């Protein structure tokens, strides 16, 4: 019997960069195919090709043994291919039944919605998936796991036979995961195929019949789940075919320092902000780069925003330089000695303004009580831009004209006019070329050497490993492990998360 879908030697490039360079992939009927790989390894590109979002540059794509050329996601849906994204696309204010039938509500003879029939049929659909809930209740009142199952029910109801699940377990608790897996097994028994993408390798191994590992736009490994196919096997294939071959310095064991003797600058005690993170406690020391690693959606972004006063915790205490800090707004955090560089340049920079105004904005009060002194602003901006090696070196240029790496340097320079006690950096090297990354690493290390405490939060293991002196791992909103004064490598970090 032909597989549900079969892709052979798929190539996809974006602006000359190979996202997929000759990938083979097949999904059998009545099976679950797990997909692992780092961010940017090509998993999502391949899934977008399957779901009709991207057309492949070359290669063959068969559905039920027939070649297909999807021009849109609509074409793919017509062949029974559906995707459930990590960010659910449910309508929380509509009822459960309306969500199951979204876009395809049953109508009666008058052409109006047949509410009774819709509720009955939705209830049946959900019971088939082992979910017994009131179809008339508002969907948003249910936990995220239930919402996810309702979206899955909608996808199944719409006739999908090939279902792509993107990170379905990242927001779920263990009992919710067990229920999801029970549902997925039922779906599998009905002869449909599921692609299961996840960073949680244990989940992949538990539910999948076969597993594919992606690396650098290629399928690095593929095997049926069975003896010998374990977490170590997946991790080794994710980061290189065996520890011996690893040339890149990031992949060697990195010796972490223990620098606990220096004073504590920032101390978190039992910080909780539902539903993002719970009971988070840690200390950041002067002269230390503290790395916090976790997958997307593990609560780091929210933790970082809370440290800068943008979000307020439900519980817990934050001390900065020994004093309890109640941060009501970002200005309070800045005044308490916290600096912050968010994960996206859109959130931190004024593209239309000249470089010097982007740098002076954080501490404008030190340049001007009432009237502006642009001369002083320019002079200070010039000093810091030059120190960090911003190219081009003029501070009058519009910020939007700079490259990404240089924009990031400007975002760092903004905090250096009055060095803060703690500098919180989220994804500080994301999307940069190698040279710019090295510059940022160098800047961060030299700031730590001057006695600043730096907290680096990232979903990329390389970023954390290349920067941090000490590493905390955040998993589903909790700090689960700490690495200090030991040797660590990427595989150990991945295994801990």
């Amino acid at each position, binding site marked *: 019997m032909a597989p549900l879908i079969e892709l052979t030697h798929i190539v996809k490039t974006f602006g000359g960069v190979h996202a997929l360079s000759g990938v083979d992939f097949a999904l059998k009927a009545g099976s679950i195919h797990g997909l692992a790989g780092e961010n940017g390894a090509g998993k999502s590109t391949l899934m977008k090709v399957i779901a009709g979002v991207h057309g492949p540059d070359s290669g063959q794509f068969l559905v039920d043994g027939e070649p297909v050329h999807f021009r849109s996601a609509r074409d793919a849906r017509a062949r029974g291919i559906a995707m459930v994204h990590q960010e659910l696309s449910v309508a929380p204010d509509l009822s459960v039944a309306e969500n199951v039938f979204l876009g395809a509500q049953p109508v009666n003879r008058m052409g109006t919605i047949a509410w009774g029939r819709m509720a009955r049929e939705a209830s049946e659909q959900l019971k088939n998936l082992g979910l017994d809930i009131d179809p008339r209740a508002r969907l948003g009142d249910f936990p995220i796991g239930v919402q996810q199952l309702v979206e899955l029910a909608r996808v199944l109801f719409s006739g999908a036979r090939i279902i792509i699940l993107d990170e379905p377990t990242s927001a779920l608790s263990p009992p919710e995961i067990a229920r999801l897996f029970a549902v997925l097994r039922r779906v599998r028994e009905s002869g449909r195929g599921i692609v299961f993408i996840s960073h949680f390798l244990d989940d992949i191994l538990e539910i999948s019949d076969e597993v594919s590992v992606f690396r650098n736009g290629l399928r690095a490994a593929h095997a049926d789940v069975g003896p010998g196919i374990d977490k170590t096997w997946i991790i080794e294939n994710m980061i290189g075919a065996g520890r011996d071959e690893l040339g890149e310095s990031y992949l060697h064991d990195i010796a972490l320092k223990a620098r606990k003797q220096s004073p504590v600058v920032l101390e978190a005690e039992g910080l909780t902000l539902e539903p993002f993170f719970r009971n988070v406690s840690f200390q950041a020391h002067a002269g230390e780069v503290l790395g916090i690693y976790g997958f997307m959606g593990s609560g780091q972004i929210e933790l970082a925003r809370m440290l*800068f006063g*943008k979000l307020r915790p439900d519980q817990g205490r934050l001390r900065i330089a020994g004093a309890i800090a109640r941060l009501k*707004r*970002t*200005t309070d*955090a*800045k*005044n308490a000695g916290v600096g*912050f560089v*968010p994960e996206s340049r*859109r*959130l*931190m*920079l*004024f*593209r*239309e*303004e000249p470089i010097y*105004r982007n740098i002076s*904005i*954080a501490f*404008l*009060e030190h340049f*001007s*009580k*009432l*009237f*502006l002194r642009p001369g002083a602003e320019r002079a200070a901006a010039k000093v810091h831009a030059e120190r960090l090696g911003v190219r*081009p*070196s*003029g*501070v*009058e*240029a519009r910020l*939007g*004209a700079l490259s990404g790496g240089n924009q990031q340097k400007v975002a760092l320079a*903004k905090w250096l006019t009055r060095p803060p006690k703690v500098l919180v950096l989220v994804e500080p090297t994301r999307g940069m070329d190698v040279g710019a990354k090295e510059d940022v690493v160098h800047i961060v290390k030299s700031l730590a050497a001057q006695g600043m405490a730096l907290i680096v939060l990232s979903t990329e293991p390389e970023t954390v490993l290349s920067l941090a002196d000490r590493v905390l791992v955040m998993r589903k909103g909790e700090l689960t492990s700490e690495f200090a004064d030991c040797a660590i490598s990427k595989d150990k970090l991945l295994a801990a998360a």
Partner: protein
Amino acid sequence: MADGDLGAKAPGFDLGRIFRDQLRNIAPFATLILLVGFFSIAAPSFATLGNFENILQQVSITAMIAVGLTFVILTAEIDLSVGAIANATAIVLTFFTAQPDYVNIQNLPLPGVLAIPLTLIACAGLGLITAFGVTKIGIPSFIMTLAMMQIGAGLSAVLVRGQIAYNVPPIVRTLGSKTLYGVPWIIIVAALMLLVAHLVLSHTRFGRYVYMVGGNREAAEYSGVNVRFVTGAVMTISAVCSGIAGMLGVAYFGSAQQNEFDTFLLDAIAAVVVGGTSLFGGRGGIGNTIVGLFVLGVLNNGLDYVKIDSFLKILIRGVILLVALVINIYAERLRSTRTLNS
């Protein structure tokens, strides 16, 4: 610019690029010149010094309101309550001033030294309510000021009860309707307000915050700028500017009554937007507002000179406003595509 290698194409002189960058400044100015040219040819008595003074006088009250509105629009907010606040403030002032016997309203006559500060406090208070609603409760400024528009109109109605009040304190009477060496005080006050606002916006720390918050609200917040304070402050400034316009307006028109300032909302918004201040915040300023005021003033005044149907006049103003909006959005789009390409 700093380095030659910034522009991918010819560095220094690229007319197309300069035009795209400056479209929002060029278009209003070109419109003004065209209008002045047209009316000068169509009506010989238009281009006289006396009429120039007329135009200035006619736009003075709009100018005072537009000053506050410039702050608001620069932060990418909107204030729809300006006309109603001006009206309410005008009526509060007459409430605190002794009225002739035939004006049959209950009021609380006070000397001018008390009446004027109390009135200013009242309009600042209305602005603070708007500020509270927008920044603390989180009501979008469009909706919040819509409610304040109704509240301002309601206060006016309750205080004046369908009557017309005439008296205002002497100092207000002077500023609104007298002249200084032949120049109407109202023009001087409007010019001073424009000047002070320009200095605040382009030369003070607060002004910089206004532009930065409008340019990228999130980036401002993540730079430690107190975005709520800045937003609240511009809403309050707008209310006070409208209040001053209302107070002098009583003297200028000679009386205070309900719905007296209704048309000023649209005129003031039109002046700011026609002048080229971005509706998305962060670009523009008092210079643009001045050009916008002249465009509006010349248009309103000139249409009287060419003896056009007064009903058609409203339609023409609407069309001009629409064209200005199109240019405003278009200028924004040109800028963002350029940003994406670079």
